[in-house]
């Protein structure tokens, strides 16, 4: 399989994730769609790494996975905090960022 197929697949996954971020209202699902976008980026990175026979892209993919884990940690913490304060779990209803 040529690298172009992998790049096309990563573009498809990335734009599906972007559509999910724009369309869905539940912040949990928005976080999941952010994961999709990061995974599309990861696939492109690893495909390029394979293309040049060089490990740098794989290291970058590992760093992206670390960043994704951090994002999950903070995002889920915020969702739990929202739930504790009895705020609606809905990005359309949350118009204020006041603590």
């Amino acid at each position, binding site marked *: *399989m*040529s*690298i*172009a*197929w*992998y790049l*096309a*697949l990563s*573009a*498809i*996954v*990335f*734009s*599906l*994730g972007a*559509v999910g971020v*724009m*369309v*869905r*209202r*539940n912040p*949990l*699902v928005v976080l*999941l*769609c952010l994961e*999709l976008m990061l*995974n599309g980026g*990861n*696939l492109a990175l*690893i495909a390029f790494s*394979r*293309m*040049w*026979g*060089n*490990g*740098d892209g*794989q*290291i970058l*993919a*590992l760093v992206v*996975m*670390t960043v*994704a*884990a*951090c994002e*999950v*940690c*903070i995002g*889920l*913490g915020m*969702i*739990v*905090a929202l*739930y504790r304060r009895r705020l*609606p*779990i*809905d990005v*359309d*209803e949350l118009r204020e960022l006041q603590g």
Partner: protein
Amino acid sequence: MSSVFFFIAAIGVIAGALGVVLMRDPFFAVLSLVVHLVSLAALFLLLRAQFVAAVQVVVYAGAVMVLYVFVVAYVGGEGEAIGERLRGSTPAAGGGPVASGLRGLGAVLGAALLVELLIALLGTGLEAIGHEGAPFTTAHGEAQTFGTPAYIGNLLLTRFLLAFEIASFLLLIAAVGGVVLARRRRGLGDEEDEDVLTPLQLVRPRDTGTMAEAVGTQRGRR
């Protein structure tokens, strides 16, 4: 043979991604993201990134998704119900006419983004995109060590040591931030538990050893 595996894994990847975007229940969205991640790990194996594929399955599809499942079980269903009730609109589309129009606009924007990305990625004119990538064997005829855990570990602890350390600090900061965000908040004037009488309070004044004693004010005198 590798193209058969590629198409099987690619179908899994796209089906998982579609499931995340389209599933109504957040719990099923998480489960289809697991399908997506495992198929993506198969693609990583095809690209000879063995270590990254293993990390993807163990850390991502294992640990991170368990975290998601716990939070969905803690929050999920009720959150959807709150949104529906406050909105008070058709349950099927999840929104009024304005919301569904915006939803269609989102899909159109996503399609535009896809076309743009495909033009950017495939229209680069890079020669190597059309090829299979680097050869499996080195110039001397021995197998490549590319992508093995030893290779990745060697890179992480030599060339990319700074990135490695910064990533570990980032994880630490995120862990502390998650604990701070999700902790049970106590207001300053919230003294529910103060009324519990312990034996120590009988033998010494109420504010001994607190800041209130240090600044000379004694609260709650009876």
